[in-house]
């Protein structure tokens, strides 16, 4: 048995001839918060639908808890709580009745309904019909439904969609607390990197159906290479002077940039500029943000 909670192998889904998910090897370890990141239409929701047995893979296999989803779907789903895309609800029922309709199927004690309602702070609205709920309240009800069966694995597709800032923070704190308190493994998808950055321990980036990065979030950060930016008084002549001394720098936006400069090299360049009577206003390090790395990885059309 492997130590992965979710392990997919060459998971592929075609709609017609278009590959929406293309050879994805998703690997999620126990107790992780796995951020599943990608631009809209990259194949996140399709992958999640396959993980839940709602859609059938064209090719490839899915193992959850070490079991094959095709053979032991019900045993797997018993331990999985999920929220896929927009929240599901029965508008003519109250929040309490919505949870009751699911509770009957999961066969958990009735007291669990009040517990999950208080977790998402819907206790006061529990008796109202859900059709009158705001999107944020429906979203919270969806999360409550996902938590109802005491799942070991929680799959949340865009869980902070439609929430107001305080709601986003609340849900984020809730998600972050769960692996610690209950040992739950969580998969959270989002198209917002900042969202994932604040919750996830592992991150998988998908673009046009392909998994283009999968590792810890610190590894992703390490990919951000730094540049040294020099601001001087006469940029063009400074650039030429440096060139005659054998130092290549990039000239752009009235600044000089040193790529991959070691400390010694930076010191030498500064020294030679000072010796040639240039006024140095600033020496700064510029680091690429995660957003920029993400954009670079997903290509230009990967709008955030």
């Amino acid at each position: 048995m492997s130590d992965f909670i979710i392990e997919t192998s060459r998971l592929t889904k075609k709609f017609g001839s278009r590959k929406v998910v293309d050879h994805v090897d998703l690997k999620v370890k126990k107790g992780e918060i796995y951020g599943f990141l990608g631009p809209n239409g990259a194949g996140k929701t399709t992958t999640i639908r396959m993980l839940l047995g709602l859609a059938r893979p064209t090719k490839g296999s899915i193992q959850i808890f070490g079991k094959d989803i095709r053979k032991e779907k019900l045993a797997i789903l018993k331990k999985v709580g999920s929220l896929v895309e927009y929240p599901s609800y029965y508008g003519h029922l109250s929040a309490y009745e919505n949870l009751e309709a699911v509770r009957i199927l999961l066969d958990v004690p009735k007291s669990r309904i009040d517990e999950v309602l208080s977790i998402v702070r819907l206790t006061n609205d529990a008796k109202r019909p859900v059709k009158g709920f705001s999107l944020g309240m429906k979203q919270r009800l969806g999360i409550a439904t996902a938590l109802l069966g005491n799942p070991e694995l929680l799959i949340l597709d865009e869980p902070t969609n439609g929430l107001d800032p305080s709601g986003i923070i609340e849900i984020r704190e809730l998600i972050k607390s769960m692996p610690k308190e209950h040992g739950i493994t969580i998969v959270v998808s989002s198209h917002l990197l900042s969202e994932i950055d604040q919750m996830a321990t592992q991150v998988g980036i998908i673009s046009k159906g392909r998994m283009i990065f999968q590792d810890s979030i610190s590894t992703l950060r390490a990919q951000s290479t730094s540049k040294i930016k020099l601001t001087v008084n006469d940029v063009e002549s400074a650039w030429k002077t440096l060139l005659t001394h054998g130092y290549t720098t990039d000239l752009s936006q009235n600044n000089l940039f040193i790529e991959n400069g070691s400390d010694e090299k930076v010191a030498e360049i500064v020294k030679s500029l000072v010796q040639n009577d240039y006024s140095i206003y600033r020496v700064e390090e510029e680091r690429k943000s995660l957003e920029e790395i993400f954009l670079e990885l997903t290509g230009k059309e990967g709008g955030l």
Partner: protein
Amino acid sequence: MGRLFRSEFLKLRKSSIWLLIFVSPILSLLLGLSELSEIEELGQHQWTATLGIMTISHAILFLPLLTGIFSSFICRYEHVGGGWKQLLSLPVSRRNVYLVKILIVSLLIAVTQILFITGLFFIGWMKGYPADIPWGTISTSVIGGWIACLPLIALQMFVSVAWSSFAAPLAVNVIFTIPNMMIVNSESFVPYYPWAQPFLMMMPNSSDSFGALNVSSETLFIVIFGSLILFLGSGLVYFMRKEI
């Protein structure tokens, strides 16, 4: 299966659609009462004659329509709020989900039939029909009508599950139900037209103005059970394979 049934029943109970079970029995009751004066001195035939009158609107029009309306509604709240994906990502088998939905609609139709027959007894009691009630004829009519509705339920469930639109399955239902009025008069078509089966099964044999009633009950059962297996099987296979 039991849990699915309870969950489904909760969803149904809170919607007001089940109130429709009263519509056709009440209309049939009024119809039966108003025609009453023309039936004279028929003895035990008073029962079957009244049953025949009540059956016409109930079995030609309302029963087939109700199968479609109930099926559409029981799928509607799943389509509208994204219920399918929530329901099917719970540890429930798709086959049972589908069968329970069909079971619920069948029960609603069964209750409609019971109310319908209660209406008949009410008329008999009011008018003082003979005490020797023709139980055989009446129960054959009611139960037969219910059985004849099962293929329609299976077909309507298939259509309602497949189309997320609420109106489309109903349109199909109406399109096939309306010609009933002509088809029940046609000896050659009626045994093979599923929408006419509830009427054929419910109409007591005494009124032989409809040529089609000469069709043997064997033929009817073959047609009914044949179409039931066909519609139920194809609907089930479709639902098991459907991508949500």
